[in-house]
């Protein structure tokens, strides 16, 4: 049955609440009938009124409140309405959530989940459109998971809640309204799709059954449909085959699927919606050249947003954020082909 990603996440939450009574959800405007700004919590407060807490607009404290609950054996899920607002919680993230377990010598665990949507392309402007995962990548002691429309979202969220580490579960605003597309007989839209093992699997797509090709495209989250479209266009218009690795866990970075793919393709293009400097792509590039220098036959290319704001006007936003053309151009550059 075709389901929108927001609906899948919603059903996952209901199942998780049914399955565990130590799970609480805190967030702004999460109660019915509103059910959260993106409706992911719809119905939850009606079914579990005692465990769904609507909160004041106090993100800076709510990260700490979730940490306090987790320190005392509960498993809070904190919904942060826009990923941009994670910035308000950084003291708690850096000086508390990421540190407690190790600095208290493993006497405590922090099994909390922060769910938040990142991403633009909706005209929300500079403070409601960002992809700030890279800021979280620099924080030791937290796990950053990137959901995509081809992931098993139900399992992914469930695993995050069962995880004893603090998990930042990054969703995407455009993903909410899109259909979850799971591989059928190993294929999604004609591309072969292989899922890695582990709690937060990565997905490797390839245009040819033999695998390999001109380059590996490493991406995550909301960039998946754009990169897959680029991969398809490269085949149809340029006869260039690529592999696309959609990372499930950005931090600690699950590099293995990228390395395996680079061993086959000999080239790497990283693709992210966030700004370029100090980005996810930079980290992937550094690690791949450390681990697989001999496999790389071309310099690594990064596709990312320009270092600036995301303008509100849709035309300006489109010019700012990386799109299909940018991905195609990067692969062409790697190929040494001028398109």
């Amino acid at each position: 049955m075709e389901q929108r990603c927001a609906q899948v996440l919603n059903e996952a939450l209901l199942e998780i609440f049914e399955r565990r009574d130590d799970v609480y959800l805190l967030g702004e405007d999460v109660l019915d009938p509103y059910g959260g700004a993106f409706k992911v919590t719809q119905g939850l407060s009606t079914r579990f009124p005692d465990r769904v807490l609507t909160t004041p607009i106090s993100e800076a404290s709510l990260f700490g409140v979730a940490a306090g609950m987790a320190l005392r054996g509960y498993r809070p899920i904190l919904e942060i309405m826009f990923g941009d607002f994670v910035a308000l919680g950084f003291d708690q993230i850096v000086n508390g959530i990421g540190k407690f377990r190790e600095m208290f010598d493993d006497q405590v665990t922090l099994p909390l989940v922060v769910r938040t949507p990142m991403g633009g392309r909706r005209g929300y402007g500079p403070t409601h459109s960002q992809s700030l995962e890279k800021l979280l990548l620099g924080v030791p002691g937290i796990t950053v998971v990137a959901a995509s429309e081809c992931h098993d979202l139900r399992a992914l969220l469930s695993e995050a809640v069962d995880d004893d580490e603090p998990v930042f579960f990054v969703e995407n605003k455009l993903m909410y309204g899109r259909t979850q597309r799971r591989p059928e007989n190993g294929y999604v839209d004609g591309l072969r799709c292989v899922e890695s093992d582990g709690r937060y699997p990565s997905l490797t797509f390839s245009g040819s059954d033999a695998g390999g090709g001109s380059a590996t495209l490493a991406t995550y989250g909301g960039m998946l449909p754009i990169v897959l479209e680029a991969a398809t266009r490269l085949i149809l218009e340029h006869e260039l085959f690529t592999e696309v690795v959609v990372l499930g866990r950005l931090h600690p970075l699950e590099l293995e699927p990228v390395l395996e793919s680079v061993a086959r393709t000999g080239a790497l293009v990283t693709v992210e919606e966030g700004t370029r400097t100090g980005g996810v792509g930079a980290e992937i590039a550094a690690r791949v050249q450390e681990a697989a220098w001999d496999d790389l036959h071309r310099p690594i290319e990064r596709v990312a947003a320009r270092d600036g704001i995301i303008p509100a006007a849709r035309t300006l936003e489109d010019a700012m954020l990386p799109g299909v053309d940018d991905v195609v151009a990067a692969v062409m550059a790697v190929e040494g082909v001028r398109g």
Partner: protein
Amino acid sequence: MTATEQLYERMYFIRRFEETLLDLFSAGKLVGTTHTYIGQEANATGIIAHLDPDRDVVFSNHRCHGHYLAFTDDAYGLLCEVMGRADGVCGGKGGSQHLCNGNFYSNGVLGSIVPVATGIALAERERGAGAVTIAFLGDGTLGQGVVYESLNLASLWSLPILFVLENNFYAQSTPSALQIAGDITARAEAFGIETAHLDTTDVAVVEREAAQVVQRVRDTGRPFFLVIDTYRFSPHSKGDDIRDPAEIEERRELDPLLVAGARLDEATRGSLERACEERLAEVVDRALAAEAA
């Protein structure tokens, strides 16, 4: 031992522990930092006397040694922690400001602890075992916005949490006049939180008031905001004091050890102090001999 003797002994031990830390620093046997509690011992001692360490929770701040000793009595684990020894309560990873032992926690960023303590109180409310959570704040913490978010949450959600504001009139080197506007208790009252204000260094007074306040939080399940005007004789950290020495000397007349000690006869006091000194010496010897982390 009478209650008066117990309170005095606890305060005396905390005082001598902290003085010993400063001595060890001066002797180069300690590195890093410490924020001593010297002069404020009546607060930790009088309040924590009413907690059940197996049920209640304390979240303390950078100036946490007094609270830790009053709650856990784990002098060896604390000294090893501050000295970077493997036997430290956090294996030497936390150091002076970052402690965890059972239901005791501390963290070193001002204000940062208040939301976490609020979350702990929420968890304990849900557990329903009647636990009281205490967050220890200082006047310097009042500059942090999350304090007010947390006061709002604690009142809104009816959380069994006692905020203890130890007002020593200085945020590091900055006097209250340069960093606090308006009235401190009024800030909590604005959120519909009951408050009490003590201006005392008498542990007997703190202890009496705390008995009622802790019970009130337990009975009502509501937050409470207790302000205690106090004073620290030692620098904010080590050797960074720019206060007028005359002001410090004047406050020494209200030293909680003098106030409480005056109620004991000399022989009793001497014997309590000797016992503390012996215990402390043994703790120091063991910690000095302990393996590095």
